[in-house]
């Protein structure tokens, strides 16, 4: 169980300054949403204002994970909201899930990552691929935050090309022997369980649940990140770990397994990025009306207006993309390629918005007085993980031409 979040270098107290964020809905997209979507968004926004905004700058500055927020995320229902309620999820639809991710990332991409990984990369594969017994064993505890999970796909030498992985399992009677290492794993140092993807003796990718206490398993932390500093990242090292056969997903074989999870998480990121972008825009808009130079608010200058107008235009386009994607996902019709397009577009959009917003804030924009620089640094990770910006472009390219440009 995560500890209570006492900071190593002294307690981090909530800042008194109010988070004045307001949502932006230029095209009245709220009218396309249902009551429970609006209530869910509102609830998470309130929670973020109370629990995340007052502490996040300091945790990010210290590169420390606010571990106490895992329980809070569980309490509001941010872990697996789109997993059926009987398995510890929220039983909500994909749009509600997207909006929850949007609001969390409005607070911080690292906080959203904590929830994305738990819901889409840990609860989802267990719900989709594990045996009924495993589902009953893990899902309720993951849903209520008693267990924290992580997802191990990327390896030191296999990032964009996960199919080349070398982590492997060998049959040993009632268990498999797992060897190898995973890199860049969100949540890993604090995780109770890891969903790990490894090749079997036939070279087929298999998924399994590895528990923290299994001998030979360790998860050292990765330090020195200038991005996603409030989210903890680590390695997974397996030295002859005996994984009981009951922990290995019975049916699923091949890259399809992990990629299906990534589709879920990428969907959430396509929404999440809008949150980060809105926070930057919201802060820039307010700043541009308050900050005066040459005797008037900088928002009155054409060059500032160009930035603001383009930001809200791009945010609005991204919102429509996400809404349509969510509508398709609710019908089970969103393709992985469509999800790639939205992830790529929206994250890039958010990064551009953050950069422009940073300029509008002038020198103040590089400080932790405003959320912009933190979002900007976070979004560099978001642009890279869950499929890099370029890899998603190649997915779209492959989809429209039928020609594979990866290899």
């Amino acid at each position, binding site marked *: 169980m995560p500890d209570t979040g006492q900071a190593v270098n002294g307690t981090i107290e909530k800042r008194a300054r109010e988070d004045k964020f307001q949502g932006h809905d230029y095209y009245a997209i709220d009218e396309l949403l249902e009551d429970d979507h609006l*209530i869910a968004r509102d609830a998470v926004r309130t929670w973020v204002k109370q629990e995340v905004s007052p502490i996040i700058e300091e945790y990010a500055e210290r590169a420390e994970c606010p571990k106490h927020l895992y329980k809070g995320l569980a309490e509001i229902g941010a872990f697996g909201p789109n997993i059926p309620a009987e398995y510890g999820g929220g039983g909500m639809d994909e749009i509600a899930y997207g909006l*929850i991710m949007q609001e969390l990332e409005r607070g911080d991409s690292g906080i959203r990552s904590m929830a994305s990984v738990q819901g889409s990369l840990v609860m989802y594969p267990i719900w989709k691929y594990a045996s009924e017994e495993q589902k009953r064993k893990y899902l309720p505890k993951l849903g209520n935050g008693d267990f924290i999970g992580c997802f191990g796909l990327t390896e030191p030498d296999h990032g964009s090309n996960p199919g080349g992985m070398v982590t492997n399992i060998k049959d040993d009677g009632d268990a498999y022997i797992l060897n190898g290492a995973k890199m860049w794993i969100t949540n890993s140092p604090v995780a109770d369980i890891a969903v790990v993807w490894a090749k079997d003796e036939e070279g087929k990718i298999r998924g399994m649940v590895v528990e923290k206490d299994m001998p030979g398993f360790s998860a050292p932390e990765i330090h020195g990140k200038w991005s996603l500093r409030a989210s903890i990242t680590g390695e997974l090292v397996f030295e002859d770990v005996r994984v009981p056969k009951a922990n290995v997903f019975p049916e699923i074989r091949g890259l399809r397994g992990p990629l299906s999870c990534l589709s879920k998480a990428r969907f959430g990121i396509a929404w999440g990025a809008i949150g980060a972008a809105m926070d930057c825009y919201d802060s820039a808009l307010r700043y541009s009306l308050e900050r005066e130079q040459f005797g008037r608010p900088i928002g009155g200058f054409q060059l500032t207006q160009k930035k603001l107008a383009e930001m809200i235009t791009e945010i609005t386009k991204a919102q429509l993309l996400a809404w349509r994607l969510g509508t398709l996902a609710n019908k089970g019709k969103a393709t992985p390629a469509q999800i790639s397009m939205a992830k790529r577009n929206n994250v890039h959009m958010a990064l551009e918005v953050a950069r422009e917003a940073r300029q509008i804030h002038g020198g103040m924009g590089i400080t932790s007085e405003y959320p912009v620089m933190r979002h900007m640094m976070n979004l560099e990770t978001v642009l890279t993980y869950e499929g890099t910006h370029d890899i998603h472009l190649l997915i779209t390219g492959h989809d429209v031409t039928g020609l594979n440009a990866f290899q």
Partner: protein
Amino acid sequence: MKLLVCVSKTPETTAKIAFTDGDTQFDATGVQFIMNPYDEWYALVRALELKEAQGGSVTVINVGPASNDTIIRKALAIGADEAVRVDAEPSSSMFVAQQIAAYAKKEGFDAVFLGKETIDYNGSEVGAMVAELMEAPFVSYASHMEMDGDTATITRDIEGGSETVEVKAPFVLSAAKGLAEQRIANMRGIMMAKRKPLKVEAPVEADDLAVAVHYELPPKKGDVKLIDPEDMDELVRLLHEEAKAI
């Protein structure tokens, strides 16, 4: 205890306020609405706490059009058991109070809770009117309350201090800060709320008695005048002649 909580809809606190029709109507264009915080954070949550401690039920009531269903669902998501919407424009405090009192009398509630005021029109009227129409005691600005059997001990804010009163059910209470602590709906609650009953009732005959005829925004704040700290005479003159503060 069978508790009725009145919830109303108000513009979000940062909404830009404007009027139309020659300053006789509030302009709702582009305004986002929320549940009145005094209703949500204090009245509703205290009612839920009582239910959790002593059993019973919490019903929320709103007088308004179907577009108010979002805030009603939110109250259900936070934990109310059922909801009633009286399908009518809430045209005045008296009209609203008559609807609530009629429903409360019909269903026989032990207590009616509402916020001390709405953050838009600041009327603070509905509670007292409901109590009068129900012929029940009214306790306003409650910042603390305990129930023992059918007796409530309620502490209310008064100028410079507090007063503690005792009332017997049925009674009407208006909630102030301190009565409870805000609760955030969680996703499970939101999904459960979808299955909770939201009844729509036709309004009873009622009059408006008082009708708003004109609205006005406060005058725009003027520029700040900076005065040399040495120049006390000028400060006194400005406070006296311009600000008319002394």
